[in-house]
């Protein structure tokens, strides 16, 4: 066998790209970012130590709260809605219908290609007059005053910009659907058949068998969904021409952070915003993890 020490050296050598990248692009920057968040710095002039000012300032910054509530609303409405749609599609796909592969492709495609181009398509699709969505709604003879204004209006009802963004996010939940489909295919078929023989109806089987068996998958998708929602940037940037408008309705957290950092060069404040976001995300994730003991069912793990 090779000498141990040689193998250790090789081990470090092979891991070196990651170790170097981690130190230079993650660990170092994290420390620097903490330092920055206690300073005022516009890149050009020397940094000034300002203590916790940036954090205190955020608490008194109305646009910070707008961005935070916008993002929270986006996650709070978008994640459950997206999960329901994704799970619904997965259940439908799991019915062994003909053309399953085709349908799966159609529902999955948007999540893979989502970017600037698709966000632009949505601005046209949700155009109040020329868009396909309002065309369908007009076909249903909806009263003109409850016709959505989408990205031209800051309101929630009739649906304005934020509901528009949420609709876009629901269109992009294909990845979650694929994960649900895999989860559904792991539900033991003999359990389903046993329940069927015992006279459980399809809704009962879904409620008391499929859903509990899927809870680990739901848990995973919800956590990923929340993290993804908090990082939304491209779609809010594109639909609002980079402004977060109308009336700050699409000003999401990362867009606000971006504007401070790269439009106004408030590097210290932007760093503080990043850490506040990190703290919020961590707390939410921990909260979901903590609650998971009560609703996530793991096979083979005894409940106490």
């Amino acid at each position, binding site marked *: 066998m090779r000498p141990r020490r040689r*193998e250790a050296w090789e081990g470090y050598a092979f891991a070196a790209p990651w170790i170097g990248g981690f130190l230079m692009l993650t660990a170092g920057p994290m420390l620097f970012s903490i330092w920055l968040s206690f300073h005022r710095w516009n890149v050009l002039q020397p940094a000034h130590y300002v203590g916790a000012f940036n954090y205190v300032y955020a608490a008194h910054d109305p646009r910070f709260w707008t961005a935070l509530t916008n993002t929270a609303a986006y996650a709070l409405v978008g994640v459950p809605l997206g999960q329901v749609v994704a799970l619904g599609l997965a259940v439908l796909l799991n019915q062994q219908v003909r053309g399953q592969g085709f349908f799966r492709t159609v529902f999955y495609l948007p999540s893979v*290609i989502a970017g*600037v181009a698709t966000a632009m398509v949505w601005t*046209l699709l949700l155009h109040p007059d020329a868009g396909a969505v309002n065309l369908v709604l007009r076909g249903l003879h909806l009263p003109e005053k409850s016709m959505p204004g989408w990205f031209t209006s800051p309101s929630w009802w009739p649906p304005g910009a934020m509901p528009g963004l949420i609709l876009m996010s629901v269109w992009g939940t294909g990845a979650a659907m694929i994960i649900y489909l895999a989860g559904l295919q792991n539900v033991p078929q003999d359990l389903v058949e046993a329940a069927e023989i015992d006279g459980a109806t399809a809704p009962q089987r879904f409620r008391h068998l499929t859903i509990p068996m899927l809870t680990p998958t739901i848990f995973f998708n919800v956590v990923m969904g929340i993290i993804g929602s908090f990082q939304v940037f491209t779609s809010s940037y594109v639909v609002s021409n980079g402004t977060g408008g109308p009336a700050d309705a699409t000003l999401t957290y990362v867009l606000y952070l971006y504007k401070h950092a790269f439009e106004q060069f408030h590097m210290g404040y932007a760093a503080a915003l990043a850490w506040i976001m990190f703290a919020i995300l961590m707390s939410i994730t921990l909260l979901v993890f903590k609650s998971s003991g009560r609703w996530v069912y793991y096979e083979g793990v005894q409940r106490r």
Partner: protein
Amino acid sequence: MSAGVREGGWRRRRRFRQGAAYALLVLGSAAYLTPFLWMVSASLKQYETVFDFPPTLLPKQVKTVRLHDQVLKLATYSPPGGKPARVAVLKADAGLLTMEALSGPRKGQTVKAPQAAVKYDTMITPRWRNYPEAWTTMPFNRFLLNTLIITVLGIVGTVLSTSFVAYSFARLRWPGRDVLFVVVMATLMLPSQVTLIPQYVIYRTLGWIDTFLPLIVPAWLGGSAVYIFLLRQFFMTIPVELDEAARIDGASSFTVWTRVMLPLSKPILATVAVFSFVALWNDFMGPLIYLNSTKNLTLAVGLRVFQGTYGTYMHLLMAVATVALVPVVIIFFVAQKQFVRSIVLTGIKG
């Protein structure tokens, strides 16, 4: 007998369920495909018809005719109780149209009728010229080239560096390895925004702003932790005996990596490659922050600049958007299996 009846009922229920599922899937996929249809349709419309109300799916244009040295719109007039006649519209005035009949008993005469009785004759006229027109409005060839350079170099870097690193975590024994692997996994939880600003400052200090380096170099330094995880898991399924045999033949770790691990991991390497392709191709924030001059923009940012400058030319915008989507859609169809499998393994999103 009763068993047979129950069996039949069960089968009927099942068939009904499948039928209902099928109907919902057809409706759902129509809804999911609408954005694409709408995009392509708008990309073939005229400037004047993109914002038509009510909108139409097909790029239509009203037929015209040259009459009395004028270009007039063609229409069909259906008089109450009479036969429909072909007309040329001379004047449209607050819902009242003045027309000249081109067929029927009143041929050659001037007719007046309310708008409701007249339907314009349209023809489907895809305006293919939108594509070259849009593409040359801004240096999109350049943007495409830039995107390709970044994407290709990024993919190569990601595949090489992540498999290199994953080999170390999967096969070599060294002090601190398991602790560092936990760190690798922990970086997955870190939102990239936390390191965004310091990274910008670092690249700025290095003079890398407005170059492709900030977009490519990270890929060569271990890329994304998800890929390291994915590859490590895969490497661990390769029998150790294969490395041992190679070692007995005098192979070094590097040779084991190139001759044993990489050839046996082609499917998973392909997965990493397609995922990094999509991530690099779709990346918006990175190029937006790091690239400034027009000649350096990528397609994603170029599209956004195009939207900012020529946003009202929706037909041109949609033409470029269509072209920008084509490569990703092709990759998606070619590598669909890779996508589906790895998303199940790791839950990474495209």
